[in-house]
């Protein structure tokens, strides 16, 4: 369990953050630029002092102002990947990595070889930081932080200073870390796409406050998200299971709830988990089983809630067999179809976006990451 409850005042800005989340897993701190995400991360790392509060990781208390506990950053065993990498310019890559490794406290769980393998650092070892690309620099910074054997890894917008191509180059490495190491991570971002690909839990922040928290699927339906990412980006994130490939169309059959979606995707083995986003604007609601339609992806379920989205439209939440989805319809449609909780309904899916593979937070360190 990773629990944070801290307050800090900086001029007129007030940070008031509290959340409690199971570990391991990736917590995305998500909010607009300037909402206090970086301040919060610095408080967690101990680089900024909180006015009051408590930070604990499992039964290890890092900060407790009431009990006058305030571990300095060097004793917190928190790895920190900064937005600007902050590699030591006078040291080669190998020495940068060594710097974290030599000062590691507590039990070691990743070796230099493992980290180099996971992050593909082998070819970079003899270079100096100024000879690296932005993406390579971030990979080295991540490796350096990991080798200090931290019990928590903070990543403060590690991709924000990279262009789109570099970002696409580094993201897969972060997914690998998430899937292969059991280290809890806090991932700060103002880019919802990154959150969708990496997060297991989401903490929403707005003007210094944590306003909502929960699992990614649950948070994708949270009404507070809309004001941050915009109405068009709102939509349920659902975890689906690959059933196989449809031989006639070549599309992948994915089970979602008690229905099935056909998705254009690189083939994955049956049983693999896929994370899928169904944007609210891409769903059409029907109150009778649809027939004679070109749309092939149809999810059946029950309306669970109808909430007003803006002056003209409503958001209709549906349960499709233990999984929640959300569709945007006009208020006129709500009236004419008499949409209300309890009504059986069908959601016609115009488009499905794949958001990487889904995963279960590993319960223990996998063999691949254990020191030989």
């Amino acid at each position, binding site marked *: 369990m990773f629990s944070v409850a801290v307050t800090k005042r900086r001029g007129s800005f007030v940070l008031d953050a509290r959340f409690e989340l199971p570990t391991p897993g990736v917590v995305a701190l998500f909010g607009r630029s300037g909402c206090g995400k970086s301040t919060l991360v610095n408080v967690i*790392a101990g*680089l900024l002092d909180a006015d009051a509060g408590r930070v604990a990781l499992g039964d290890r208390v890092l900060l407790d102002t009431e009990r006058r506990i305030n571990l*300095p*950053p*060097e*004793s*917190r*065993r*928190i*790895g*920190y990947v*900064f937005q*600007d990498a*902050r590699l*030591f*310019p*006078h040291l080669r890559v190998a020495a940068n990595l060594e*710097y*974290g490794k030599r*000062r*590691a*406290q507590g039990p070691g769980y990743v070796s230099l070889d493992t980290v180099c393998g996971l992050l593909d650092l082998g070819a970079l070892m003899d270079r*100096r*930081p*100024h*000879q690296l690309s932005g993406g390579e620099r971030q990979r080295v910074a991540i490796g*350096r*932080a990991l080798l*200090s054997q931290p019990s928590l890894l903070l990543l403060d917008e590690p991709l924000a200073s990279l262009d789109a191509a570099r970002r696409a180059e580094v993201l897969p490495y972060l997914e690998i870390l998430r899937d292969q190491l059991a280290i809890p991570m806090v991932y700060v971002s103002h880019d919802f796409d990154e959150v969708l690909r990496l997060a297991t839990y989401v903490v929403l922040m707005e003007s210094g406050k944590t306003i909502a928290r929960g699992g990614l699927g649950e948070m994708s339906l949270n009404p507070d998200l809309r004001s941050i990412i915009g109405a068009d980006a709102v939509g349920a994130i659902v975890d689906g299971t690959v059933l196989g490939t449809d031989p006639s169309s070549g599309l992948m059959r994915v089970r979602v709830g008690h229905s099935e979606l056909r998705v254009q995707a690189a083939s994955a083995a049956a049983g693999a988990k896929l994370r899928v986003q169904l944007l609210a604007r891409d769903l059409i609601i029907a109150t009778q089983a649809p027939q004679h339609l070109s749309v092939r992806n149809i999810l059946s379920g029950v309306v669970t809630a109808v909430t007003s989205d803006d002056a003209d439209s409503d958001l209709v939440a549906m349960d499709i067999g233990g999984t929640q989805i959300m569709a945007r319809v006009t208020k006129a449609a709500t009236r004419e179809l008499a949409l209300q909780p309890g009504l059986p309904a069908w959601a016609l899916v115009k488009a499905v976006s794949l958001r990487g593979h889904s995963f279960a937070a590993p319960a223990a360190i996998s063999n691949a990451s254990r020191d030989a």
Partner: protein
Amino acid sequence: MMWLSPSEIEALSLSLSVATRSVLMSLPLAIPLAWALTRRRFVGRTLLDAFVHLPLVLPPVMVGYLLLLVFGARGPVGAWLERIFGVELIFTRNGAALATAVMSFPLMVRAMRISLENVDRGLEEAARTLGAGAMDRFATITLPLMLPGVLAGAITAFSAALGEFGAVITFVSNIPGETRTLPLALYTALQTPGGDAAAARLALISFVLGLSGLLLSEWFARRVRRLLGH
């Protein structure tokens, strides 16, 4: 060095020896002081800063006189040094080194501070999150990154020490082979009837020495910059 006369060689090597001692004396004090003045906020910081800079604005003769009062044979520190360590400063090259160290100290601290201000504190924070304590951080991150400033400071102070006149002649007098450095030898030559030629030669030696120092420091700064990728 057959084109130099024995007395010129004596003055030159004495100057180098005094300047080297002077830099070695001030370095261990200047580095922590530069760090404290740049990175720490404490009561009396401004006063300390002003005190460090005093030699720049005081007449060198007055600095020499103050040194005489404090470090002289009957001065509080001078008498103590002689009694405990048997160190004599007055009329010795160590005394000359002390006088030049005091005079060039502000230049040294200044160069270090400029370079320290350019050291990204984010790197020290990064080192902290990797488990490096205060001394560790200073030794492995801050000091190596401020090294250009330390070297620039040392070279500047060395060059200034070669040229120091007023404080030296007041504190340790003008003794051939012990305290008569290049500028003092030059002054002595000028005071001697028919010493014009000797003075010109000494002036030329000082000129070449100073120029080489500047070129050397520039070459070094460039190398370090390339190493750090600036």
